[in-house]
């Protein structure tokens, strides 16, 4: 395939994300973050001497069939310099061979499957890079925290039936067991489940002391709403976004002691993050979510690589990416290891007196 004109004209960044189907909300968040980053870079004068960035976003509906079509189109037709994607792990795994075949970097920002890292870098796929942390490290951090905090000894896990939910739940279950915390049960609910009354009743009646959540989007909020109105007196933990609409619910007394491990929080006090969070809120009326943050970061990491490569040629960008040493919004460092996995910071968050506070941060 022809490589894009490397000297002039806009530089196109590709994004493959679910913009329809059950995961559409997450894809939308990610795109918002990506778009914001691109806008900011363009406002600051673009890259490589005033070349602007443009976004080519394709819907992958969270299924590999559409996913392969979207990525092939981005690479071979829209001639993007790099691809960000593909949110759903299954699609990312299908997109990775394409990145390798066409030698275009694929920056994975939100997919959680551990196999992505196994296959990248030393694993054989030099063109795949992942900036979001692996669930295993997050789970270990969280369980140490829970163990130390000391008041929760029986945890139930509620996860969505997706790679995110399943790998997250498995990692946490293992980490909790290692710390001697009992897991009273793992429930996998289909994405798009709206009724959680059964689970809520169960937690109320089987001695569960805290619920670890690995569910996303509308389902997540829906669970919290129902738990609140059913007067479920339990702290939640796991991967809970302690912000926005969630926080409105969680600050109530009944959820006292809720905690979460998250690679991002809008509360993080770095200047870069403050700027990002403010810009995002003014554009979308809500604080940025994890997906928006990762999308934003992906663009910034790519922009950094493009500047260092002094070229928008995908192969050159790949070479530059390998050598990335970039300070992220959250104050961590994005540096790819042999498996092209970055190790940014993650945070243990807690609700205290109705406010989210950062308890500690960990390097993942």
């Amino acid at each position, binding site marked *: 395939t022809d490589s894009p004109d490397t000297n002039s004209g806009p530089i196109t960044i590709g994004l493959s994300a679910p*913009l*329809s*189907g*059950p995961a*559409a*909300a997450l*894809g*939308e*968040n990610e795109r918002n973050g990506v778009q914001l980053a691109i806008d900011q870079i363009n406002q600051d004068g673009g890259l490589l001497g005033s070349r602007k960035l443009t976004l080519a976003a394709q819907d992958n509906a969270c299924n590999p069939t559409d996913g392969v079509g979207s990525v092939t189109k981005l690479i071979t037709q829209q001639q993007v310099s790099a691809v960000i994607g593909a949110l759903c792990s299954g699609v990312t795994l299908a997109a990775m061979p394409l990145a390798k075949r066409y030698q275009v970097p694929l920056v994975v920002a939100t997919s959680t499957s551990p196999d992505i890292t196994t296959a990248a870098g030393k694993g054989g796929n030099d063109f795949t890079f992942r900036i979001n942390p692996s669930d295993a490290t997050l789970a270990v951090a969280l369980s140490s925290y829970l163990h130390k905090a000391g008041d929760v000894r029986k945890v139930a896990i509620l996860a969505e039936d997706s790679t995110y939910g399943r790998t997250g739940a498995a990692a946490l279950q293992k980490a909790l067991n290692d710390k001697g915390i009992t897991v009273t*049960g*793992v*429930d*996998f*609910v*289909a994405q*798009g*489940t*709206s*009724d959680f*009354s*059964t*689970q809520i*009743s*169960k937690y*109320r*009646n*089987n001695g569960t002391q805290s619920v670890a959540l690995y569910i996303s*989007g*509308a389902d997540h*909020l*829906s669970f919290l*709403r*129902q738990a609140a*109105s*059913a*007067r479920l007196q339990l702290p939640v933990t796991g991967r809970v976004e302690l912000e926005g*609409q969630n926080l*409105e619910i969680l600050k109530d007394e009944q959820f006292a002691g809720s905690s979460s491990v998250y690679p991002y929080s809008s509360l993080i006090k770095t200047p870069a993050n403050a700027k990002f969070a403010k810009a995002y809120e003014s554009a979308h009326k*809500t604080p940025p979510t994890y997906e928006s943050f990762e999308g934003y970061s992906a663009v910034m990491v790519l922009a950094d690589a493009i500047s260092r490569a002094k070229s928008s040629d995908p192969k050159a960008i790949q070479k530059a990416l390998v050598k990335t040493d970039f300070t992220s919004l959250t104050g961590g460092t994005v540096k790819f290891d042999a498996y092209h996995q970055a190790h940014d910071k993650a945070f243990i968050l807690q609700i205290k007196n109705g406010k989210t506070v950062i308890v500690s941060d960990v390097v993942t």
Partner: protein
Amino acid sequence: MDATYTWELLANGVVLGSSYALLAAGLAVIFGVLNVVNFAHGALYMLGAFAAYFFIPLTGYWIGILLTAATMAILGIVLQEGLLRRLPPDGAFSRSMLLTLGLAMIIQNGAIVLWGAGPRQLPEDSRPQGHLLLGDVIIPTGRAFIVVVAVATLGALYLLLNRTQVGRAMRGVSQNPTAALVVGISPERIGRLAMALGVGLAGIAGATLTPVFTVSPQMGITIVFKVFAIVVIGGLGSVPGAVIVAYLVGMLESFAGGYGSAMTQSISVFLFMIAIMLVRPQGLFSTEVRV
């Protein structure tokens, strides 16, 4: 796990069943009268939820529900007049499947464009407050209202279908459109009524859930299949059958999920459906007539 738990699961099953029943009754009416498999039912349910999301803060719970039902009923009439009526009568079944599939795509993705894909919830002060205590079982008021609305609506629907001439006509049109013409029924009128009822019921189902769940454009995607199955198991076109099966499924899900895991919950529903269909292929509550 004690008696309270069992009662709690029972209560959950009734609430869940009530939602399914509202949806299934609507689908059964539309299928029964128009021979239309309404794949847009989930999308319409979502629209109902959004309508209630906008109405309830303005008008309060009960009027909001009524307004939603009315709006959705009117939408049903519009859909009937604008789309479904134009399908030629023979082979309506498969065509309707596709037509409503297209409609579902338009509504669902239209909603994403219009309102974004993220979840929304009713503001705290427009939700029904508090909860009921039955013994030790806590039932949030919003959930109790679902049961109240479902029982009232379905009761009225039963009376309409079985005690009135119009209801009989609705069943008649589906069983033999020519015979309906011969006895002087206007199929256009009955078709409009069926769509108004069916879509209205979907709207009510969505509306009653608005205060309890969150509202998002994706909320109706997967529910269609379950409800479709419920309707077939109840006996195609049999509204009471659909309602009874809806409650059975609600109960089953609640207990299977309560005593097993969420996976047992979904698996048990599929197995239940398969088992019933093997034993009674014509559905639980349909009269068989000779070949």
